[in-house]
């Protein structure tokens, strides 16, 4: 029993150290020539442009939900709906825009990359890269790191703004606000700072995605089952890491409000 526990602790510490080494190596090799701008642009297109429709649809529905729920809570506690815009905008900008957007990106982009890199590993393309004298971390991880973190940042900013617009539309229909009164009720609760903070959150969540999917892709076992396992594991780990990181970042940002 103790041996099993020891083995488990040893393995988890080893994996953690390897994960952070991969992150540091990927980050540092961004600054080494060649920069491969074309590859970065291609990955950026995959992350930002192709995910944009799905992300925007999901995020605007969740904005509608937030308005309905906020109205319910406000009726429960203070019996009128004058604070609904501020409350909803706060929940949207501080939490939901960043988390929902990046969880979606994590399952779409992360699964795609893990499957791609895993099948490269299985068909020995990564060993071929090493033989040609190309460092696979530099070749595969660094462009994806830049593309994912900036792509997620822009997507989060856009989806925050879109969320606010949808919330405004729903509350003009359902609660009888006008656009002006919605904004003035909103501005007493949130400011531009909240949008900047959610963009920082998006940047950090985006950086998690390629590192995890490369981590599982590089150690993918042979065969179709190995690739499937790498994909599933990376989606799960990305989701957990995003939720945990969100907790940490919320704690850090709460000192600045």
């Amino acid at each position: 029993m103790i041996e099993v526990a020891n083995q488990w602790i040893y393995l988890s510490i080893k994996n953690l150290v390897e994960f952070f080494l991969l992150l540091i190596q990927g980050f540092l090799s961004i600054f080494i020539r060649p920069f491969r701008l074309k590859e970065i642009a291609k990955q950026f297109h995959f992350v930002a442009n192709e995910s944009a429709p799905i992300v925007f649809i999901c995020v605007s529905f969740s904005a509608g939900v937030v308005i309905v729920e906020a109205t319910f809570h406000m009726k429960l506690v203070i019996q009128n709906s004058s604070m609904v815009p501020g409350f909803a905008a706060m929940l949207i900008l501080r939490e939901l825009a960043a988390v929902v957007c990046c969880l979606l990106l994590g399952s779409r982009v992360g699964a795609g990359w893990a499957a791609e890199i895993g099948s490269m590993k299985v068909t020995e393309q990564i060993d071929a890269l090493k033989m040609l004298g190309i460092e696979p971390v530099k070749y595969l991880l660094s462009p994806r790191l830049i593309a994912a973190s900036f792509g997620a940042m822009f997507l989060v900013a856009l989806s925050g703004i879109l969320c606010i617009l949808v919330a405004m539309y729903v509350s003009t229909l359902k609660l009888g606000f006008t656009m002006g009164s919605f904004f003035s009720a909103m501005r007493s609760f949130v400011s531009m700072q909240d949008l900047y903070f959610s963009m920082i959150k998006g940047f950090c969540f985006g950086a998690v995605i390629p590192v995890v999917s490369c981590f599982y892709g590089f150690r993918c076992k042979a065969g179709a089952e190995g690739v499937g396992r790498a994909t599933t594991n990376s989606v799960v780990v990305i989701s957990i890491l995003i939720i945990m990181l969100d907790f940490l970042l919320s704690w850090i940002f709460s000192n600045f409000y």
Partner: protein
Amino acid sequence: MKVLTNTLAEIGGLSVFVQEMFSVAYRKGIKQRDVLEQVWKVFIQSFPTTAMAGFFVGGILTLQFTLQVKTFGALGFLGGLATSSTVREVGPLLIAFMLSGKIGAFTSAELGTMRVTEQIDAIRCLGADPLQEIILPRFLGIIFASFFLLVGGLFMSIFGGMLMGVLFSGINPEEYIRHIPTLVSKVSLINSVFKCFVFAFVLAAICTYKGYTASGGSKGVGIAVVSTSVQTMICLVFMDWFTSVISDAFFTVVGS
């Protein structure tokens, strides 16, 4: 236009699949032993991750509400407000997002591999119905297991919120718990359980459907897995909005 027709085709295929599953269950009966086995397997496999996710979601919501409630000087209401909004909306959504990666991807990969390696056709050749033998136990098992997982995750979120309230906003646990019953009413609990059930149904239906209809070698399995998690998430967000609106309308008509 092509996107629209594809979406409609997917929705139609899914509805026919679910209808067929129900008719098989009605005509040929359910194998209870297999269903229980699946419930147990899925539950054990994903309980640790779900519990962890629930714990952190509760913590995050408490953290955000602390800042807000402090400005009004009403820290006593913190527990009630944070728990109410976690249980009613944010908790089920985020935990179900987690589960779509864990259960959904796993099941569709498993069924897709069976489909691609022609094991499902082999079962049909032996004279048994693959829908009854393989798909139906998984479908029902995932519904029950993920319903229990979602509810368990919500309980963990109360503990996470309480811990965060003690550590971060400095109120004692009794004070945190005291206002939970005043703000979390019967209506909220019914709403939350309804939402958990709908989410569990969506999770189970999409992953079994995508796994069962996978085609085209190991690449097809990969496509099935990715599209499972993406489509599940879209459906979850849509159903979240839908259930909120429906239960809102229902309780305004009926009255609480």
